[in-house]
């Protein structure tokens, strides 16, 4: 019989990703309504030391699957071991973060288990005993509530940074269960890994994002955004116009064909607010727009707006925030 909520504990370089805690909190919420327990599956090489800490965030059990072949993520190896675990434990639901890894893994596991999968969800709840997910479609212009009534497990990926993390319960431990890894046939070989090293938080996990658009006028002016990002501990993003102009890499593009972000604070400077840009950031909690055109569409989505030249506004904003933080 299907039972329990299973969460994919995503880690990278020996650190648990924040979305894992968001999933555990959400998992705990629905599990308690269904009278079930929450477990996590942690996959990698040398990751077992991370398992215990997941208890504080709500995991009753942590399944650890360790193997040298799991050091770098490969679709085949991860999908094989995770699908095996899910088959053995038959959870009611299996939740993953909607990260690059989570999205990749979820599709393969869902097909191996011949079940349904809802991706990029922004909420999960229990209605009439059924797990219901909320997800935006059409670039955020419509929202659906959907369920997987029969196929099991119910599978979903949840957008990072949207759901709250419950206060960890210090000292609460999880039962750790080591599971042998049956890697199977891995058909891709990782030849090289190129890491973008940055002292800044990752866009999809950042609490604050400072983003620039065509109004920045050139790559050299991104320094203004970086200075502001430094005082805020923020990540730097950009509109597609800046990416297409070759000013900044695609990896920082926010929008429909870039990253989807949900920070607590999104500062858009020199961005007009095209629908495709809004698609990637409208679930931010507070939006600030700096634009010299008072008619710019971005002001319709902004909680706070300054109509003015960003070259005058940004340096003062940086200075003032520095003062407040001092």
């Amino acid at each position, binding site marked *: 019989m299907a039972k329990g909520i299973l969460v994919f504990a995503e880690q990278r370089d020996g650190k648990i990703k924040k979305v894992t805690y968001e999933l555990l909190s959400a998992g705990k919420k629905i599990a308690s309504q269904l009278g079930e327990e929450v477990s996590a599956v942690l996959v990698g090489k040398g990751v077992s030391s991370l398992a215990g800490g997941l208890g504080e965030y709500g995991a009753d059990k942590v399944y650890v699957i360790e193997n040298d072949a799991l050091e770098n993520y490969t679709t085949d190896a991860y999908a094989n071991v995770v699908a095996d675990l899910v088959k053995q434990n038959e959870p009611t639901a299996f939740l993953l973060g909607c*990260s690059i890894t989570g999205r990749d893994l979820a599709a393969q596991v869902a097909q191996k288990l011949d079940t349904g999968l809802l*991706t990029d969800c922004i909420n999960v709840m229990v209605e009439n005993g059924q797990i219901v997910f909320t997800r935006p479609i059409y670039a955020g212009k*419509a929202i659906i509530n959907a369920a997987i009534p029969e196929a099991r497990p119910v599978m979903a990926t949840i957008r990072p940074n949207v759901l709250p993390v419950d206060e960890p319960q210090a000292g609460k431990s999880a039962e750790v269960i080591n599971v042998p890894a049956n890697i199977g046939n891995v*058909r891709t070989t990782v*030849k090289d*890994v190129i890491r973008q090293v940055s002292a800044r938080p990752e866009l999809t996990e950042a609490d604050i994002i400072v983003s620039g658009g065509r109004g920045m006028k050139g790559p050299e002016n991104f320094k203004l955004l970086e200075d502001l990002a430094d005082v805020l501990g923020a990540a730097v993003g950009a509109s597609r116009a800046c990416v297409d102009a070759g000013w900044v890499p695609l990896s920082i593009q926010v929008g429909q064909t870039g990253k989807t972000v949900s920070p607590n*604070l999104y500062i858009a400077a020199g961005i007009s607010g095209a629908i495709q840009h809004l698609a990637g950031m409208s679930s931010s909690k507070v939006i600030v727009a700096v634009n010299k055109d008072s008619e710019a569409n971005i002001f319709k989505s902004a909680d706070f707006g300054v109509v003015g030249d960003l070259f005058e506004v940004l340096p*003062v904003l940086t200075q003032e925030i520095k003062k407040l933080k001092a």
Partner: protein
Amino acid sequence: MKIVALVKQTFDSEAKIALEGGKIGRQGISLIMNPYDEYAVEEALKLKEKHGGEVTVVTVGSDEATEAVRQALAMGADQGILVNPGTEDIDESTIATILAKAVSGLEYDLILGGFRAIDDGSAQVAGRVAEILNLPVVNMVTKLEADGGKAVATADIEGGSAVMEVTLPAVITAQKGLNEPRYPSMKGIMQAKKKPLKKIGLGDVSLDASQVAAKVKVLTYSLPPARAAGKIIPGEPAEAAAALAKALREEAKII
């Protein structure tokens, strides 16, 4: 090299979405080929130009999706297949099932698709097709070389990119940056009208409606709540900037 490109017809991203009878209205909506699938078609054509071979475009959709296939043919693909499921009760698992069935009847070295569609953004159909056909998949590819039974792909990964080698046949999904899709030429558009475009139904790929019933059920459609009107902070730039910093701390309590 024989290449299959999976494409989807989607709403134009500028489309204004409204509800009609509790569902997404289709009135006055213009349709386009999913932009990520355009990258897939373009890459297929580039590989064909380099190594010879042929490109087959496959889609699942209603008759409306003919346009997306025609566009791919006009860009240079050789033939198209449109499978009309004849039902609206479909989800990603069933679309993948239909695509895989249609593709399994073809000869192929490589299957290309977009990594996600801009309408439902679910990013799972191509991966599922790979799983059904027992093929490896590399998602979010920004650079691809394919020849002599293997492919080397640069793909986005968490926090960077990875170079991956995979034996063919394989499924590769396109990320923005892979290429710049060509516009169909006038000549291409004329030629596309004479290219084979097979329109078939579920029965033609040996499936029946019960085998493709959706596992996901949509309960409600709604429009996002309008954001409350924001506050424009008045004053000269310097003055406004200072007031903004204060508002972010005291009002929004966010910094």
